[in-house]
């Protein structure tokens, strides 16, 4: 497959791994957080840890939009779906996420709720056009990548005057979450989470560019490499981070030059700015309340805001106390540290969100590597 196979070439991977092994300094440990679940997925799917030297550790970050959605918002989605007049549309891997009442959107659908899995935001608007006597709610989640398409459908619905369409906005922002991690006690005060650099999500940067990450490099002295999701991209990003650490540099570098620029996609940014505004705070599963980390729909599009139209209440239910998802999402625990992992919590019966989405760290461990000790950062390293 053109432009894909080139980035999965095994021989080149071994060459790159050899180059990394030559460049790492034996006495040093390297701890790199891949922020995005897409990277976590790729790392396990292609067996990347097998190719890394023992002193290079990958720390899994919170970058799975399904995993970071708090239970209260999952409950709210289920409540919306149960309204007889509502058709609730959302992306596939959200359907299995359990809420606080041991229910999920899939279970709600089995009980009669009209829940539709969609592949794009545009599908939800078409469902609204096709069902004028129903209320169609698009339950929108995702980082900066999926936000512009949501903005587009809101503008289209506004322009066409579609009255039976609304959006429950749960879009969140990557830079705010990285700041939150870097400000966390585990990193700042206790030093229990060593972080020597970040692999930044390339799909996010196709929209926002690489410039927003320059702040981390400067303020926190952490190198950032914007990396693609193919396994050779990941290896190359690791090599670039190793070089920065060795040289004592902390800069933003762009591995994914085939699609990412410093400024990003200005048209997409303008669309998002036109439709959305920052929430003062937004709750993330695992990270808690993070200031200015989520988006809401602007007043001009209030008619299409499901939170206002249905007076959605978002509760703060208690998580299972034994579930370590919050620590896993912050990178301070690995899935195998959790007593529920692989016992009561499996992909067939997920207790925590990290086991639900295929991008979650627990699901990736379980699906691709549960027979061995994965190469991840020990918390006391």
């Amino acid at each position, binding site marked *: 497959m053109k432009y894909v196979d080139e980035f999965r070439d095994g021989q080149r991977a071994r060459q790159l791994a050899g180059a990394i092994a030559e460049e790492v300094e034996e006495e040093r440990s390297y701890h790199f957080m891949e922020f995005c679940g897409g990277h976590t*997925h790729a790392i396990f799917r292609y067996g990347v840890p097998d190719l890394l030297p023992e002193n290079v550790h990958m720390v899994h970050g919170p970058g799975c939009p399904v995993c970071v959605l708090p239970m209260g918002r999952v409950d709210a989605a289920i409540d919306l779906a149960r309204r007889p007049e509502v058709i609730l549309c959302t992306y596939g891997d959200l359907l299995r996420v359990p809420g606080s009442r041991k229910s999920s959107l899939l279970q709600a659908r089995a009980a009669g709720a009209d829940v539709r899995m969609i*592949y794009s935001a545009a599908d939800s608007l078409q469902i609204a056009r096709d069902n004028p006597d129903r209320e169609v709610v698009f339950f929108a989640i995702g980082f900066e990548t999926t936000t512009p398409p949501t903005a587009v459908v809101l503008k289209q619905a506004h322009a066409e005057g579609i009255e039976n369409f609304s959006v429950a906005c749960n879009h969140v922002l990557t830079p705010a979450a990285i700041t939150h991690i870097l400000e966390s006690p585990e990193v700042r005060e206790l030093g229990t989470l060593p972080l020597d650099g970040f692999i930044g999500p390339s799909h996010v940067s196709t929209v926002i560019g690489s410039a927003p990450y320059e702040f981390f490099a400067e303020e926190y002295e952490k190198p950032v490499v914007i990396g693609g999701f193919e396994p050779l991209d990941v290896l190359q990003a690791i090599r670039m981070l190793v070089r920065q650490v060795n040289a004592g540099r902390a800069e933003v570098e762009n591995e994914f030059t085939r699609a990412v620029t410093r400024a990003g996609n200005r048209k997409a940014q303008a669309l998002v700015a036109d439709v959305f505004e920052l929430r003062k705070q937004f709750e993330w599963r695992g990270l808690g309340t993070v200031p200015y980390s989520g988006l809401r729909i602007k007043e001009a599009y209030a008619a299409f805001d499901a939170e206002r139209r249905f007076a959605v209440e978002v509760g703060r239910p208690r998580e299972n106390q034994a579930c370590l998802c919050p620590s896993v999402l912050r990178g301070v625990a690995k899935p195998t540290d959790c007593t529920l992992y692989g016992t009561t919590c499996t992909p067939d019966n997920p207790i925590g969100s990290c086991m639900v989405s295929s991008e979650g760290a627990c699901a990736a461990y379980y699906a691709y590597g549960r027979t061995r000790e994965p190469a991840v950062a020990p918390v006391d390293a």
Partner: protein
Amino acid sequence: MAHGGGGRAMSRLIDELFAAAFDNEWMAAGNDAAAFTAPAGRMVMATDSHVVTPLFFPGGDIGALSVHGTLNDVAMGGGRPLYLSAGFVLEEGFPLADLKRIVDSMAAASREAGVPVVTGDTKVVEQGKADGVYINTTGVGVVPEGVTVGGNRARPGDRILVNGTLGDHGMAILSVREDLGFGTDLQSDSAALHGLVAAMLEAVPGIRCLRDPTRGGLSATLNELAHQSEVGVRVREAELPVREEVHAACEFLGLDPLNAANEGKLVAVCPPESAEVLLETMRAHPLGRASAIIGEVADSDRPLVEMETAFGGTRLVDWLHGEQLPRIC
């Protein structure tokens, strides 16, 4: 509803549609059951209910699929299929033209396979209680002497083969079901495999296991075999035949071709010394041109399927957990 009520309308439906399409002595007799001479030896029997959306898809339809699916189940038991039954559940209001198209397709598939549909049943349910049409088919066959295949017979060192490209059916269905329009001419691989199986068993009577990787795809089949035989399985990603279109569609949707359904593919396990002969035999058959040896049975007490990735690493190939759902990004 009248067509399922047991009265004149139903009788006409049976005579003018089903009996005419299947056109054989057992159907023409019009009895409640078909009587036939049972051959000597071990019989094999399989049943399968077919529920598919949409009913008509690139490369096939529910009618042909209901014939192929059950014939293949009989064949995977090592059997030569002899007779089929067909049970229909129709939703009230289902267009007769569509039903005729489906029944004609079933009849054509059964004629091509040389296995007649000798008995059947029709029920009609109220509108909204079904999704157009559901078809159950049952097949009976006979297992040749000297042949014993089963999922529990894989042994360490055995080789694992497939007869062609993986995931074609699943992705062909998805491309039309979700109205995604991949812009390819990807077709379902729906086919009857008993002819291929007969040739394989003639060349290598000692085949240990046969299984068709339908729902759940190759990953489910290999995990089933590993569990039943209590062995490990190791496959090589570079050897897995996958069409570029399937690969691209899966990539686009965040799905795994190993989990995608097949309707004209089989997995065979055979002793290592027979592997090359079996491969040549399979490749000589029209339904096995793209056959490949994809891995081997491992000497392990953990029934896990591992894959050497084309990238040079190793990973588990796990069961599909629930429905395969596309990733958000």
